[in-house]
């Protein structure tokens, strides 16, 4: 469902990041993708370092609490393995742009970006409020070709349930043309509280059960964030050679996420 040249959002705000789906995009050798994500982290570092992307639309690109994303930096600073165009926002603007995409409006509106240099380098424009004359920021709607998310549960009909830090996933799903959801578990009955985030099956294109598919991020109620892995990624990704060797051994030479995790277990390290 992801094709070369697509505009793809794999969303997740530190929680429920679709790592397994990202690995599959890398294995399939997709190229020339425009990747969208508010907080590109390790899976985007892997996609970028593997040469899948030609553009990144984002608002914060780092390894949270650890440091830089070395593959993202290498692509921007040294154009390796390929040049990467950036379209850069602030979180508030990007959240408004996703909400506009889901609402089928042409732009998101917010009181933001005033006095920063960001508007010089992206597509923010300022408009006047027709009622008060206040200067407000307008940012074009985000409409991905494909949105990919990971959730806790789906039922057999394909209704999707998620809880905890829900990020911008609902907006990213409703803004997209096609939607892929990986889940921890497919259950007979969701038994969801009335206000939990449920994406009804008819807005979801495909559901795939991948247990642990958000590792090393977390799935609340299933497993915690593997902070040790996030720290270890810094040394794996710092150099091109160690990054490529790691990708080859653990992602490209494995056929799915279960095999990936088994291959990691064979080189268990304590940090």
């Amino acid at each position: 469902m992801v094709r070369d040249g697509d505009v793809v959002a794999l969303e997740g705000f530190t929680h429920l990041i679709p790592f397994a789906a990202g690995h599959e995009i890398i294995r399939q050798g997709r190229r020339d993708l425009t990747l969208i994500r508010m907080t590109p982290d390790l899976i985007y570092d892997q996609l970028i370092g593997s040469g899948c992307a030609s553009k990144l639309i984002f608002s914060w690109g780092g390894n949270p609490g650890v440091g830089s994303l070395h593959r993202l930096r290498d692509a921007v600073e040294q154009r390796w393995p390929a040049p990467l165009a950036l379209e850069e926002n602030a979180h508030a603007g990007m959240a408004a742009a996703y909400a506009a995409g889901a609402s089928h409006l042409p732009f998101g509106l917010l009181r933001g970006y005033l006095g920063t240099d960001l508007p010089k380098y992206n597509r923010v424009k300022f408009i006047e409020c027709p009622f008060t004359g206040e200067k407000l920021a307008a940012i074009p709607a985000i409409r991905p070709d494909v949105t990919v998310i990971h959730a806790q549960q789906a039922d057999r009909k394909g209704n999707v349930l998620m809880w905890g830090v829900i990020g911008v996933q609902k907006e990213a799903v409703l803004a997209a043309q096609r939607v892929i959801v990986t889940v921890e578990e497919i259950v007979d009955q969701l038994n969801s509280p009335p206000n939990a985030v449920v994406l009804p099956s008819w807005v979801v294109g495909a559901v795939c059960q991948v247990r642990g598919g958000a590792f090393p991020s977390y799935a609340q109620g299933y497993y915690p964030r593997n902070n040790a892995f996030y720290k270890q990624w810094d040394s794996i990704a710092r150099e091109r050679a160690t990054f490529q060797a790691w990708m080859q051994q653990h992602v490209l030479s494995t056929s799915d996420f279960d095999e990936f995790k088994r291959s990691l277990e064979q080189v268990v390290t304590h940090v």
Partner: protein
Amino acid sequence: MSEIKYTADEMMTIAAARMIRNGASCFVGIGLPSAAANLARLTHAPDTVLIYESGCIGTKPTVLPLSIGDGELSETADAVVSIPEIFAYWLQGGRIDLGFLGAAQIDRFANINTTVIGDYYHPSVRLPGAGGAPEIAASSKEVLITLRQNKRAFIEKLDFVTSGGHFSGGDSRAKMNLPGKGPTAVITDLGIMTPDETTKELTLTSLHPGVTVEKAIESTGWALKVAPQLATTEAPTETELRVLRDLNERTARAHAGQV
């Protein structure tokens, strides 16, 4: 009385924590601000409402989060809302008393760069970017900034203004009609700077114990103004140090472990 030993980083975190008023709603960045805000909550400000941009409102973590959205934050929160909601309804909605930010670089008017060093299209260092900071800096009623003081961080002219402080000084912020009044203090490992009432230029108003004025001046990339009535920051108390060290120790233990 025996002298209590502490590090410059501990002094910085403790001095920053003391700035948080009990009961304030506080929008917290990850790293140093998060450590200071949680220290405040565990000492003099138990009713502080900590808000993280991952949508966690009123969170009470027992260990410091590594990321802005660790499970520890959502599991101990009063409410967890979506990202569009946290920015639109809570921050832009005017419900934040205090925004608490870190920075890679800062200038004399407390403008912040977390985007690039060098030319935007050919940067020598590509930093993570804006995150929530520009709107936290604009819309919180008041802003605190904390970072380590040296000439690579405190610089004469920023290559990129990611988040606005007092812009070009004087009444330049007031003229922009931003909702919040901007940065009111910058807390470093050497001392505390506050903006001059009229010029809005950061002025050294307090030095941490044992730090010289010369050290503060030579660690700043512009000609740092020093207040005529320069105070000395009160040294950390035993309680502050114990609570901070316990917190850091719990955190280190929680973040270690097996990959």
